[in-house]
């Protein structure tokens, strides 16, 4: 239990660090470029459009669309994209983790 709490705190702190350093945006940019290049984005977009068109825009909601598209879309992410991002994330964390404290962040 206590370990879980520590793990959660670390996770929160890491996420915050990623956002603040701009690394998250860079990762996002890389991911976006890779997904566009591999055709994934166009595929998912087309899928969403087809679903909405078939059902009519009035009857579609974001939640529903997510439920239908997400599993497929997640499974279709190319392996090398996952690997690239994971490697990069690991490298970044290895370089930046030393001074990271797991204390709860102060309330804004």
């Amino acid at each position: 239990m206590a370990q879980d709490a520590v793990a959660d705190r670390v996770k929160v702190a890491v996420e915050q660090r990623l956002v603040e350093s701009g690394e998250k945006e860079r990762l996002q940019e890389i991911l976006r470029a890779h997904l566009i290049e591999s055709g994934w984005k166009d595929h998912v977009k087309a899928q969403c459009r087809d679903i909405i068109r078939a059902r009519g825009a009035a009857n579609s909601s974001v939640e529903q669309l997510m439920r239908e598209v997400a599993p497929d879309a997640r499974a279709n992410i190319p392996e090398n994209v996952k690997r690239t991002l994971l490697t990069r994330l690991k490298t970044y964390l290895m370089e930046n983790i030393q001074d990271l404290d797991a204390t709860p962040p102060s309330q804004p």
Partner: protein
Amino acid sequence: MPKAGRSTSSSLPSPAPSWSDSTLPFQTLLASTGSFGNTYVPPATPLTTQSSADRSPGAIEGDSLDAVHRAGAHVPECTHLGQAKPSTLQRYRTLVKYSLFQKYQHRFLAGFQANQRDCAPPKGVRLQKLEAKRDAILARIPTPQCATCRRSFGQLLVCLHCDFTGCWSNGHLRAHQKANKHYLAVELGTLAVYCARCRDYVYSHPWEAMLRQERLRIYHRLCQLAEPRTRRLPLAECLAPETNNHDSTGADGALPGPCDGIRGLRNLGSTCFMNVVLQAFVHNPLLRAHFLSDPHSANRCTREACIACQMDQLYGQVFSGETTPYGPSGFLRAMWQSSTELAGYAQQDAHEFFITALNQIHMGLCGDDHTFNCPCAVHQTFAGQLQSTVTCLSCGHQAVANDPLLDVSLDLRPHTKRTRAEPLAASDDGPHSLLDCLHRFTAAESLDAQGYMCGSCGSACQAATKQLLFKSLPPVLSFQLKRFEHHSSASKIETFIRVPSELDMSPFTTRRAAGGNPRNAESASPSPPHPACHYQLFAVINHEGTLETGHYTMFARHRKQWFRFDDHLVTLASLSDVLQAKA
């Protein structure tokens, strides 16, 4: 009628001042990639669109176009948003500003840093100062976090009624909305507004207009940082017409005519090669804006067989509101008169026609052969520059030459030998996507030893490499895929080449190559994509059949909807149809 109809009719005649013309989200500077090629074999199956399968004769008719309009108009504005207090809108504006700045703060700082680097050699002191500045900004701008689980990843939404921030995936925001009866929230990543009463993301015109303004503003600043020396329209000029436009169309719900800009072209006897290129011209936003602003009129023109006059007439016909197919016979006759090799009823190569037509239009507009830095619409739209760098491997001397380009011809043959300098190059069996082709196009290739003589060390028979990069990118980039092979016997390469709907050209420019040392080049820390290098696909020309005989069709985007043009036949198409147009 929301976005789909608004942009074209009233705002057209401005000769496209870079980004205010774009109806796209803010990241596209000039929203256009002309993908051009005598290439694709269209899908074997009929197009899967709702209304077009049995609709054979004539151009697209009123009711199927209405379907397009309805598709956009299906979702009414959210009434809850309309009733929201002005203070809520103000709150939204604040949050938009915060979120956009928060998102791009590093790019702002990086851009600043890059400019510093360009101007002066990097000094440790200066960078430290910048870092201190960055930290100060970071301290002032809080990182958004879910108030319940403190996550800062994933979808975060901010309540528009109070200061609560919550995450979507764990349902913390919705729990808050339920408990406090707050119903409007804005998502920080996309800046879309979620309405709990509608249980969906919603929009309303005033809010959209505000969002667009703020996005333009921040985009303007990003562009300014990326290219500080470029002259741009002042921001106020770009913002003002946008808002007027909203008011005029929003108030009385005025719609442009249903068929504006969509018209089939008759086949005048093996002229599908011409029809596809003309359709590509018609749907090219820059050329369209130019010719509809009436710069060239047949009444004032004295030239014989002037193609520019014919272009003017073509646009007039296409935007006349007529729905019957139009036969561009005047255009054909003018082409026949001005270029002998295209005369006759034989089948022609669309790419040859494209190049000839561009030259002829240029002649019609300018009246001379001078093409460098030409102010005419053709060169303003399509002209870029290639830089070819020849590096002598023995002395390291670099010879640089610049070549103008109107379009890019990409080779599809499998490489016989891989070059070591470009690890990203395509796999051995040839390219599979447009990006593969571009990587190959810009890869360093080794020159034949005999063919090169170094100007610096003066020794012939030296090994040297040659690399092509884009020095300046045209607003509309046109690619041709070289599918026809002429070896001992001519044949057509049928490989499917994937074309992305969005393309970032920055890796292929000289700017990127110069800025990145080898470590950077391996995407260790890629600089953010340059806004001016971002392209969107708007037209694809396909060829089916063989080298000797075949048929051209094309896809083009018109008001965010794709259409398939097959001579006189115009049908709706979806993005997936366009991207899957393959062998």
